[in-house]
């Protein structure tokens, strides 16, 4: 892990010194991880593809002034999550959902045809995760799908570990109720 962090810092430094290939290497290292995290956040493959690329485009412009106060992964994860949240706010507005109807899960319009291919349980999980408040959803995705330790999640989100643990517990509780119908025990 230490070695990886050093390599990562070296790539960032080399990019900042003008080596464009160093950025390509960073993209190659993290593209799958970032994509899968975004996919679990927005629950739509085509949107996740676009948002993943947008994440790295944003990262490209921001990386020149990145100061390595956190790891590159922490930093780019934050970019990706912000894009996801902003994307879903825009989708909500586009679908003319009432301002007070903020708990309703929103899937992008073109997700319907894709979700036909998914089974019922996967669709139910999509809806359930999307119905989580954004902070709980971020923590849940980072903890359950990305398997990140609480400390790292707290660093990414700028929260305390206790707050992160609380968010995760609340998310699990909500999902337990929403998905009760599919539980077999």
């Amino acid at each position, binding site marked *: 892990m230490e070695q990886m962090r050093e390599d990562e810092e070296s790539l960032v430094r080399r990019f900042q010194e003008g080596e464009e290939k160093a950025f390509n290497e960073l993209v190659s290292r993290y593209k799958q991880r970032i994509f899968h995290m975004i996919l679990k956040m927005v629950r739509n493959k085509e949107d996740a593809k676009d948002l993943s690329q947008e994440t790295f485009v944003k990262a490209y412009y921001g990386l020149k002034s990145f100061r390595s106060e956190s790891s590159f992964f922490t930093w780019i994860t934050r970019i990706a999550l912000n894009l996801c949240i902003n994307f879903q706010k825009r989708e909500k507005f586009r679908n003319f959902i009432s*301002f007070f109807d903020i708990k309703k899960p929103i899937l992008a319009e073109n997700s319907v045809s894709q979700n036909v291919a998914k089974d019922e349980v*996967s669709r139910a999980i999509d809806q359930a995760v999307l119905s989580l408040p954004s902070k709980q959803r971020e923590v849940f995705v980072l903890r359950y799908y990305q398997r990140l330790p609480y400390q790292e999640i707290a660093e990414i989100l700028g929260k305390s570990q*206790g707050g992160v*643990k609380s968010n995760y517990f*609340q998310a699990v509780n909500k999902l337990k109720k929403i998905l009760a119908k*599919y*539980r077999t025990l």
Partner: protein
Amino acid sequence: MNCSKITSLLPDYNEDSLTPEEKKIVEEHLRVCESCREELKEIQSLFGVLEREKTEKIEDSYWINFVPEIRKKLTQAPPPEFKWNLIPQLVPLLGFAIAILVAGIFLFSKDHSARIQGVSLSEQTQTYSLYDFESPVDQLADILSLSEGTQEFKDLVTSGNGESIMTLEKVVDDQYWENVELQDLLEDLSSEELQLLEKNIEKITI
């Protein structure tokens, strides 16, 4: 350790990510508490459902073309610079945006003023505004239904031998962290406000 604390540890217990000490405490409690055993079954069942989620396959061509596509986007759309000479053309759009903003403020104004008074129109619990309290510690004590001066609050924020070593994290971890109001507070605070709260808690002395 009480049931509320145990249940808060069950998701991590299920994923075998507790410390050995925590795991031992949970297992001892589960031996004697049927309610928590039921809760664990429900959590295990939930994670069983989540494991059934199908992963969508992403075509190899997407990954192969990922970096070239990024490069293409970078050459096609450099970061936008503000074009001052577009201001006259933007005026109608700005007018529309202002109208939407005013409508939004009007719609939210009841919720906003209620929030300042410490009550939210949220369908769930009250949310708290920092503006109602003299300090974040004061607010934390209020949420925990304790007064800053009480022995119980002092016990909460100091160690067993009376030294003030408490951090916000320990307060949240030890008790009440499934308290929705506490969660709301933590969510509402900015990073700077969280840091201030942590510093103030550390300063509490007997």
